[in-house]
């Protein structure tokens, strides 16, 4: 009996440190990542990508996709902060994993890198569909481009990258990115997904080994090669149509686009996948806001109610995670609204370069219950949606001007009449 309780205590002591090694509000970078492979040889054929992740401090856990002991949660706690699925041909995951549990994983705010390849299974397509990405229905189709290729017409040399410092880093990727795989498209009305690497206008998706019987459905720049999705809870998902994009062979290979004189010693793949992994695991582009502070000009306390035509000052502190620490966020497009059914005041906040955004304005001439609203949705950054409610009252009856200038003639008339009455009564009584 004593032995059992002692061993239980020992085991729980070992489990306790596990809880500290996860991502939290103060440290949003993921720590523990589960990597699902359909073939263990991927560990060596994609070793450069995995070693860059490990060198940045990630704890990678390699498992076969059909491993029967797979589990994302234990006793209601998630065991991993991120998930990499490099298993394009897996029909069914082992253990307790399935597309529903992966969708719940993303719903809990955790991140995912999903890669399909030629002959992607329905399971992988289903997970991508949940995230808003439509792979080409034809399972034998690949992306073919007769003008932006390198050597083989299915090895695409793509350079149509999204212009975002948050997603792809500040350094421009000079060399084209090599890609061989399947095409996907995004629904244009979905504003959560974004094309990071698009195909050139001459690309199309078809089976390379058979003649085309009808024009291909997916063509041109509508084809996305790598897309990202940032969910409303700020979970980030990268979906790629090619597993070879991450492989050592393409990372080390040189690139020369057919018909172009430029030959690059190294493809842009390594820089591309490294920067993308930094973004998806919240090492970049992750914002945190402090509370909204507002007060009347000249005071420091926050009042419980404002009066119309008051002058007030508003400020909010916004920090950006640099991967290791919180740095001040600097931008000139942060705006605040003074909102009641529609924004009565919309002002751009000015920054003091130390993370504090501030502005001052006059309360409008309308009374009611207003909200200070900051809604910030910048490409590649977490969405900020902050609000604080404050009522606004009209003038009290003793806050109006004491004497109204336009009424001075009336005041004059009244007093003149009184004086006239006084003079009249004297004259009437004492005239002769």
């Amino acid at each position, binding site marked *: 009996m004593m032995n059992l309780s002692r061993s239980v205590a020992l085991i729980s002591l070992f489990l306790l440190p596990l809880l500290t090694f996860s991502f939290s509000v103060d440290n949003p970078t993921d720590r523990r990542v589960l990597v699902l492979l359909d073939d263990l040889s991927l560990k060596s054929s994609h070793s450069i990508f995995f070693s860059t992740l490990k060198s940045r401090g990630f704890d990678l856990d390699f498992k076969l996709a059909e491993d029967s002991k797979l589990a994302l949660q234990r006793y209601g706690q998630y065991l991993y902060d991120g998930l990499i699925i490099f298993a394009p041909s897996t029909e069914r995951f082992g253990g307790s994993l399935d597309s529903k549990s992966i969708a719940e994983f993303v719903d809990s705010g955790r991140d995912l890198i999903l890669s399909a390849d030629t002959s992607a299974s329905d399971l992988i397509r289903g997970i991508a569909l949940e995230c808003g990405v439509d792979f080409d229905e034809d399972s034998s189709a690949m992306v073919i481009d007769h003008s932006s290729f390198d050597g083989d017409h299915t090895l695409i040399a793509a350079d149509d990258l999204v212009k975002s410092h948050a997603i792809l880093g500040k350094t421009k990727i000079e060399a084209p990115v090599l890609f061989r795989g399947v095409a996907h498209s995004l629904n244009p009305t979905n504003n959560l997904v974004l094309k990071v690497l698009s195909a050139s206008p001459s690309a199309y998706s078809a089976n390379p080994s058979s003649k085309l019987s009808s024009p291909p459905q997916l063509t041109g720049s509508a084809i996305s090669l790598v897309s990202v999705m940032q969910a409303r809870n700020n979970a980030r998902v990268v979906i790629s149509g090619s597993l070879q994009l991450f492989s050592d062979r393409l990372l080390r290979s040189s690139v020369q686009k057919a018909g172009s004189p430029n030959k690059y010693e190294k493809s842009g793949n390594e820089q591309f996948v490294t920067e993308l992994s930094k973004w998806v695991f919240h090492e970049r582009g992750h914002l945190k806001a402090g509370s909204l502070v507002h007060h009347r000009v000249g005071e420091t306390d926050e009042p419980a109610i404002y009066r119309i035509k008051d002058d007030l000052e508003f400020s909010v502190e916004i920090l950006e995670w640099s991967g290791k620490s919180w740095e001040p966020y600097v931008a000139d497009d942060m705006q605040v609204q003074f909102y009641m059914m529609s924004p009565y005041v919309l002002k751009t906040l000015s920054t003091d370069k130390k993370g504090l955004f501030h502005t001052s304005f006059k309360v409008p001439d309308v009374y009611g219950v207003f909200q200070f609203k900051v809604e910030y949705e910048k490409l590649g950054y977490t969405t900020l949606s902050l609000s604080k409610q404050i009522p606004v009252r009209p003038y009290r009856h003793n806050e109006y001007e004491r004497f*109204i200038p336009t*009424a001075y003639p009336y*005041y004059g008339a*009244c007093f003149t009449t009184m004086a006239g009455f006084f003079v009249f009564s004297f004259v009437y009584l004492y005239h002769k």
Partner: protein
Amino acid sequence: MVKSTSKDAQDLFRSLHSAYSATPTNLKIIDLYVVFAVFTALIQVAYMALVGSFPFNSFLSGVLSCVGTAVLAVCLRIQVNKENKEFKDLAPERAFADFVLCNLVLHLVIINFLG
């Protein structure tokens, strides 16, 4: 015809003027006061027509003070006029005292309503 109508108008005016000169002095003083009050009221109405009725309570207060005091002066004139048979038994001092008291109440009210 034209000459006779203008001559009629002149005769009418002259007869009115001579009849009016016959009224006692105290009544003439009251008449002057009424004209002054109505004139002040007209000035205020003209001002309101120009500027608009923004502090409407002030406008009403001003006009009411003029019109009210004019009405009270007319009442005093009726009661004090010796030719008026109806008020034969009313002492003119009593009429004047009523006039003063009513004016006091009137001015109290308009100062309150002036805002």
